[in-house]
């Protein structure tokens, strides 16, 4: 049994009866048991639940069911509510929180017959780019344990990269799927805002948060997205649009594809060796019949500033519910209401979360609202317009996912602004609400490099198709830690 397989391969093997879901689940659980301590990729492992789901899946298959995801294991980022299982968001605040309901994403994948192995580590409340802000400790990069796996979905990325699961759900508010995908050599997709329901996904910045997946290949991502996407009456911001057949779209040849290269993403700050890998990947696309066109995103340099007003502003309100009154962390022996609020929140939240709550509160406060929040919203519109103009000339936009490869643990955690700059290429995509992907595109000094692909609104099928065609022509995505020389 090959635990380094992805979803699509497992699906085929289960269909052929090469092994049962229970056997496969046991194997993954054993792998987690053996390796999780070193990586800290999982916060909670749910063996009993996993085996019960696997047994049910095997029983359904025995009755003749053939759904593609039936009996396939995965892990959920600990930001998705899972009924009866601790859902902590990697925060002390929710360390004791057992969700009484399932997120729509969890419910849909359960219904598809998938097996949940556990809940993965992350930056606290998805705030971070290195997975160092977790209450449960940092996650290590399976390619090099001294390096960060990226964040905030670092646990999901490390778990897939180390074969502690074949795929994992994740979320992306400013790059939290694409950056860990790049750092861990995985395929990661953040769909268009509204493509996947946010019901049951713990909010960080509501207008930017979007669920997606970390997988071994674009084909795997297509299979999962097929089950996850679609309108949800429980999420008013989810898009009421039909979901195309992502798997069927994979096969389309790339001849005539116009690829836009934002000149701002190939400028100062980009590591030369990373750029070399990206240019080589772009040459592959040319060989597949695509043409490269330089485009400009003139306002993209404003994205980080705008993001760090809008996201903290929304977060400051979203995290107000954690007050020690109804659930979650409550300080010991509160003297009065104010003491209850103050101590529960200052003891329950970590430093980065508190920093963003304070920044957001400040940005929304009387006298500053226009200068910060309104201004940031204007920048957001300009950023979106940049993309709209670019997409008049090209079908997809490509560039590096990150300026450099994974950095050492602790190297940026003392300096928030340097850390925020990690998301320089990814954040504008969230502000614009567009779908974005990162796929493996080579290595620099033994660490993976990610190529970012950005598409038009709701054009996930095209992104997956482009990524899949690249993966048919290359083998970067098949490399796993230990096998890469």
């Amino acid at each position, binding site marked *: 049994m090959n635990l380094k397989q992805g979803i699509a391969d497992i699906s085929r093997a289960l269909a052929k009866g090469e092994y049962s879901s229970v056997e496969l689940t046991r194997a993954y659980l054993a792998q987690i048991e053996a390796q999780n301590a070193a990586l800290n990729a999982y916060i909670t492992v749910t063996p009993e639940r996993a085996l019960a789901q696997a047994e049910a899946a095997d029983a359904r298959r025995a009755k003749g069911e053939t759904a593609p995801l039936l009996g396939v294991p995965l892990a959920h980022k600990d930001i998705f*509510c899972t009924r009866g299982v601790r*859902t902590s968001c990697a925060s002390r605040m929710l360390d004791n*929180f057992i969700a009484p309901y399932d997120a729509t994403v969890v419910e849909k994948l359960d219904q598809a017959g998938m097996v949940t192995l556990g809940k993965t580590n992350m930056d606290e409340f998805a705030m971070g780019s290195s997975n160092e802000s977790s209450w449960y400790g940092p996650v290590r990069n399976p390619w090099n344990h001294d390096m960060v796996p990226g964040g905030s979905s670092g646990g999901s990325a490390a778990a897939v990269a180390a074969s502690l699961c074949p795929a994992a759900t994740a979320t992306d508010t400013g790059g939290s799927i694409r950056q860990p995908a790049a750092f861990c050599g995985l395929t990661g997709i953040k769909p268009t805002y509204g493509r996947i329901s946010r019901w049951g996904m713990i909010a960080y910045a509501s207008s930017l948060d979007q669920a997606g997946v970390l997988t071994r290949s674009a084909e795997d991502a297509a299979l999962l997205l097929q089950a996850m996407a679609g309108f949800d009456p429980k999420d*008013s911001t989810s898009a009421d649009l039909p979901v195309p057949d992502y798997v069927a779209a994979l096969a389309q040849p790339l001849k005539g594809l116009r690829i836009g290269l934002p000149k701002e993403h190939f400028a100062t700050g980009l590591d030369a060796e990373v750029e070399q890998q990206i240019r080589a990947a772009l040459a592959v696309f040319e060989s597949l019949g695509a043409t490269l066109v330089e485009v400009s995103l003139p306002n993209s340099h404003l994205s980080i500033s705008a993001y760090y007003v809008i996201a903290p502003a929304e977060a400051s309100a979203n995290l107000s519910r954690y007050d020690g*009154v109804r659930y979650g962390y409550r300080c010991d022996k509160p003297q009065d209401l104010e003491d209850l609020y103050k101590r529960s929140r200052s003891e329950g939240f970590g430093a980065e979360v508190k920093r963003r709550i304070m920044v957001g509160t400040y940005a929304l406060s009387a006298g500053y609202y226009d200068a910060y929040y309104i201004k940031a919203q204007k920048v957001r519109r300009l950023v979106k317009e940049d993309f709209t103009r670019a997409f008049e000339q090209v079908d997809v936009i490509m560039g590096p996912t990150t300026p450099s490869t994974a950095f050492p643990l602790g190297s940026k955690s003392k300096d928030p602004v340097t850390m925020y700059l990690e998301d320089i290429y990814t954040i504008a995509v969230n502000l614009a609400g567009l779908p974005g992907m990162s796929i493996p595109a080579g290595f620099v000094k033994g660490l993976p490099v990610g190529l970012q692909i950005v598409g038009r609104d709701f054009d996930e099928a095209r992104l997956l198709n482009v990524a899949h065609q690249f993966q048919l022509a290359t083998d970067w995505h098949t490399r796993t830690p230990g096998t890469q020389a």
Partner: protein
Amino acid sequence: MAWETVIGLEVHVQLSTKSKLFSGSSTRFGAEPNTQANIYDLALPGTLPVLNAEAVRMAVRFGLAIGAEIGKKSVFDRKNYFYPDLPKGYQTSQLSFPTVGKGSLTITLDDGTTKTIGVTRAHIEEDAGKSLHEEFPDATGIDLNRAGTPLLEIVSEPEIRSAKEAVAYLKKLHSLITYLGISDGDMSQGSMRCDANVSVRKVGDPNFGTRTEIKNINSFRFVEKAILVEAQRQIDLIEDGGKVIQETRLYDADKNETRSMRTKEVANDYRYFPEPDLLPVIIDDAFIEEVRSTLPELPDVKAQRFQSQYGLSAYDANVLAAERATADYFEEVVKGSGDAKLSANWVMVDLQAVLNKNELTIEQSPVSAAALAGLIRRIKDNTISSKIAKTVFEAMVAGEGDADAIIEAKGLKQVTDVGAIEKIIDTVLANNPAQVEQYRAGQEKVFTFFVGQVMKESKGKANPAQVNEILKSKLAGN
């Protein structure tokens, strides 16, 4: 120089939707604490709001009824503050783009004059839960049943100039919302709550004085008293050389005074921003016209019709049209009795007295509209006199049956037989020769004595008109 009071009212009306503004929980009043709070109402992580379309429809109904502009695009905002009965740590409300814009209400004062009061806006928002301080020593109980109940906050222009006008405005609002069926308007259950902004100035002064806000006044009577006492407090303060401070005050009905609330409230910065979990509400003309087509006949129009159709006075028409239930009752009585003026009198005077005495609403009336119409028919066809009718009505209120049954059982049928009346009159005249002499000598006042005697002899059943006629004729010596 005389003082003038300037009042603006903010009225919170609980919309009578079945479920909450953003969740499927029931809005029923009086359930066990926290039995009507689901995971959204508890603000569990990951939950999201879904707007109750019925609440928007109700707000639009109200907007159309006051001739207001309807916001084609209304936006919900988060109003941020910490309080234990506010589970999310923010209230979802509408700040810059309310569903209902500028409109107006016409009020009728006691002297019959009317005045138009501008309505600045009406916005949709969710209610908070309740904090229960008394039942728990050293702790506070939280009941979230009410949290998320839809409210329409109706804000008036500062165009109200007296406590009486304020009450008339509130009564008009109450009339409208119950007519529209968007709220039960029950102030005792908090379905209608009033905050009053009060300031005073010298008559003729173009500038407003510093205002205070009196929070959560829960009856029409208290609104009047609170405004009166607060205005007087401000006048006394200024006349003594003091200054009014802008603050929130509470009205204490027991002591009939207002007093300052914690000034901390004033320092709150609510940090409003658009609610990112909800899309803007887009309302198109087709929707507005569809809602308009379902509006009932509103009180002003109905009062006009009562005047023209039934020949009622403006006063009677306004009183009867003010509440939908009363108007419906009245029209049913008219339909059954065929006499609008008698119906109006019976509903406004006799029935109203019974309802007031027993603290009943007209829906709880012990006498149905059909039964009252039956009684009026018997007055009209001379079966009973108006006076006997009061006796019959009392028996009806006591539950002794319908008018016909009571008249029959008690033998109250009016005597209209000329021979029988003549016989009684003859007896009365025979028994009172002295009075007959006086009358014939020109003392016509004695006539009423004879009438009284005849009625007494007939136990009130003789037809008064016939008694008058025959008596006059006999006394004239015919």
